[in-house]
């Protein structure tokens, strides 16, 4: 059987979901027999080499680069899977949307983060504004708000077991029967 090509990326996430993939433990040896990794932090490949069968997305979109990357993934992957609460519903970064009480919420958010919080040490009193930094979005967007997602796996992070089951189901084209204990929103 031809190996499936898999690609993974972290957008506005903490890499916890990628770490969880490592929790499949020794099954990773089985995995590399079944799949070939394309663009992914797993092999540190920064650009796609070929069209992929499955793309796993960790994290939602909080800056323009996230949107750009996600759209590229959509174009280059047959099946796109949102992995974890950040990709599914914004996760912790999306708190920024919910705490925006002021008239100028993004400015307040940045000022709180870089200037006004009690533990901030920032002698120049600058908010990072280098042209090399991707432009931050007005709010955090879920992956499904930006492109069409095919599947979404909740959890922060989803366990290695559930990822393993999901990968196998995708590779075999069969839905897996997920026991209730493995489904988590947190």
């Amino acid at each position, binding site marked *: 059987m031809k190996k499936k090509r898999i690609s993974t990326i972290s957008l506005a996430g903490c890499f916890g979901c990628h770490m969880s993939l490592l929790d499949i433990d020794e099954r990773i040896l089985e995995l590399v027999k079944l799949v070939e990794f394309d663009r992914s932090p797993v092999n540190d490949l920064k650009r796609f080499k070929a069209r992929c069968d499955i793309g796993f997305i960790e994290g939602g979109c909080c800056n323009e680069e996230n949107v750009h990357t996600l759209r590229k993934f959509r174009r280059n992957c047959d099946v796109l899977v949102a992995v974890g*609460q950040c990709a*599914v*519903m*914004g*996760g*912790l970064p*999306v*708190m920024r*949307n*919910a*705490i*925006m*009480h002021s008239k100028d919420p993004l400015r307040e958010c940045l000022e709180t983060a870089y200037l006004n919080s009690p533990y901030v040490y920032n002698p120049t009193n600058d908010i990072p504004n280098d042209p090399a930094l991707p432009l931050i979005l007005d*709010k955090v967007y*879920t992956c*499904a*708000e930006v492109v069409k*997602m095919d*599947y*979404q*796996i*909740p959890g*922060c992070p989803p366990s290695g077991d559930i990822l393993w089951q999901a990968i196998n189901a995708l590779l075999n084209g069969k839905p897996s029967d*997920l*026991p*209730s204990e493995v*489904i*988590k*929103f*947190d």
Partner: protein
Amino acid sequence: MVNNAIVFKIDGVEVRGKPGQTIMHAADEAGIYIPRLCDVEGLEPQGSCRVCTVKINGRTAAACTQPVAPGIEVENDTLEIRNCRRDIVRMLFHEGNHLCPCCEASGRCELQALGYRLGILQPDKYPYLQPVRPVDASHPDIMLDTNRCIRCGRCIRASRHMDHKNVFGYIGRGINKQVGVNGKNLAQTNVHIDDHAVAPGICPVGCIIQKRRGFYDPVGQRRFDLHPIGTEIEKTPKGIKK
């Protein structure tokens, strides 16, 4: 009249109820779980969340307020009813800010537990409204995060009928309906940490939080970690059904 005189059917199974008893109560006693959110043991039913929707002789009704009647046929665990409940629970998730990974109620939250039980995996049907709602941390012992409130009114009924205080009440209408307190903020009310209204288990979600007790049960030992919601009632636990 003889007790348990009213005979009716839930999903084809014969159930006996007492006069004046609600369908939900009779079902509970018969070991049949009907999902619920605004209803909790010890408080008068309010019939507002509609998660307990059943079909009675083909018409929908709230099982927590509808009394039993002889010979009725109740549909509870059918695909149509399950889908209806799934939609209601989904809407509740999408209407507020439910960031379970940072919520102290996670693992003991009834909304979350119903999400699991109803097999809600893909949040793609409704948009996230992500409203901007206040967090009231003014009180030394109690905190109110209205981002998570599902307006079940359990705190309102507990405060009124058990504490005789009326600390909580609804304010606003329609989608702007909120739970408010009878003061400028919680600290300005006569709410007390020992009130029934703020006891764990009254608020089904993480809206009413007792301070300095955060995350008191470790992951794996929380209320719904071991058994899906409803299995304490069911004689033959079914767990998640798609």
